[in-house]
């Protein structure tokens, strides 16, 4: 490990990466949608050896008292391969919680998901959308993979049918009506290693990361969420630089990986 780390740092001096990528180059991103028969919308995202699946399920619920005409979203994340820290238990893993919250806030802040259209009867009944994320394989850059999967799952999702009493009827297929998702908010993460900014780190590279910043942008380039992590901190200039990189990368993903999938 140590040797690996030194080697990575050594290469970075020449702006080189282990797998030959440029610093601001992502590994190939593959989006598959409709991967789950039982979800209203679903997607599997592969970035190198990182694999994440996300699914959207809809249910009806009472609205919150302070927003009677808006639907509700709730996001959870689980990790598969890190079974170890599951078995040892304790309070819910901080990593899962942060992952779920960053993805959740990226979508929520973008207002791409139209919560008002998720209202059925104001003050009485609204749609509750569950976004669930499962990390199948972890070779770095989880937040981006999870965020892409989440956006794709919502874009794939359709409303279930309601019966005459207004309850979800699962004995018939989903309706043709799409969940109202009007854009593609994307959370992209820039990491800093020895003062160098880079995109889409592998797990090996992440061992050397000092700090990360995740910036969610929507289609018009506006920022809708930021989350900094790690212990290294950033300068102002680095933050502004990261904002540029993430906007550019999100745009490219919308034009390529998402175009291919939808």
């Amino acid at each position, binding site marked *: 490990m140590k040797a690996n780390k030194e080697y990575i740092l050594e290469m970075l001096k020449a702006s080189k990466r282990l797998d030959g990528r440029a610093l601001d180059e992502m590994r190939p991103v593959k989006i598959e949608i409709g991967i*789950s028969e039982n979800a209203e919308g679903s997607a599997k995202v592969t970035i190198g050896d990182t694999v994440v*699946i996300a699914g959207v399920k809809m249910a009806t619920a009472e609205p919150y008292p302070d927003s009677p005409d808006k639907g509700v979203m709730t996001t*959870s994340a689980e990790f598969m391969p890190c079974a170890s820290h599951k*078995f040892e238990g304790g309070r819910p893993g901080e990593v899962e919680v942060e992952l779920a919250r960053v993805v959740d806030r990226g979508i929520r802040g973008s207002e791409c998901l139209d919560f008002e259209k998720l209202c059925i009867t104001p003050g009485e009944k609204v749609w509750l959308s569950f976004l*669930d994320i*499962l990390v199948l394989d972890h070779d770095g850059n989880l937040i981006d993979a999870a965020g892409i999967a989440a956006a794709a799952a919502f874009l794939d999702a359709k409303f279930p049918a309601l019966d005459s009493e207004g309850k979800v009827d699962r004995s018939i297929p989903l309706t043709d009506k799409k969940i109202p998702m009007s854009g593609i908010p994307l959370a992209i993460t820039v990491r800093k290693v020895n003062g160098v900014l880079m995109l889409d780190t592998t797990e090996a590279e992440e061992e050397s990361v000092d700090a990360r910043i995740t910036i969610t942008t929507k289609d018009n380039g506006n920022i809708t969420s930021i989350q900094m992590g790690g212990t290294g901190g950033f300068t102002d200039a680095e933050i502004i630089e990261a904002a540029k990189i993430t906007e550019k990368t999100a745009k490219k993903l919308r034009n390529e990986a998402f175009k291919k999938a939808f």
Partner: protein
Amino acid sequence: MSEKKSGKRPDGRAYNDMRPVKMQVGVLKHANGSAYVEFGKTHVYASVHGPKKVHPRHMEDGEKAILRCRYNMIPFSVNDRKRPGYDRRSVEIAKVISEALQPMVFLEEFPKSAIDIDLEITQADAGTRVAALTAASLALADAGIPMHDMVAAVAAGRANGEILLDLTKEEEDAKDAVDMPVAMAHRDNKVMLLQMDGDMSKEDLKQMLIVAKEGCSELAEMQKAALREKYKVE
């Protein structure tokens, strides 16, 4: 991949046909061993971590490894979203799967260690525990953990008066449905897991055991093929 499809079941299978089966090992790069298994629309990932240290320490066994199992249905694997986290069904299934696998593994080679198996049902259409156990056995082998024997599992059952192999959820919803998950240790020809719910005669039991064992033999061949597939390539 078994696709006889000559029978009269809703999906065209004969009474002793498996649904289309898919098996793949080494699907997860960051586990010591892994496998992906499909029984029709039932999908499961298995990963193995270990042998490794035991926490909390007082659970370790000085003479052999402990084998721990987690069985989890992800929230969107079923029609009505499942709340994340443990429930009693998961605890019970993890226990019977772990008991079926323990005698397969040379646990005494790894004293004071833990071998953890994680089973994630990503899509459920009946037969999740048998698909999971079949996948777990593959993942243990993929992890290079020395084993006496492989375990393959499938459910036999009854619907609308017929003894059937590998029921779908639709078939399980029949009025007279019986579901009987069976796991076999291949070389020993022993039943390692057996559960049943329903209402049946002893004669039904005999017939179902025959059907289930044939299914398990078929699956055992597929397991071998799946392991060869991976280790040939590498």
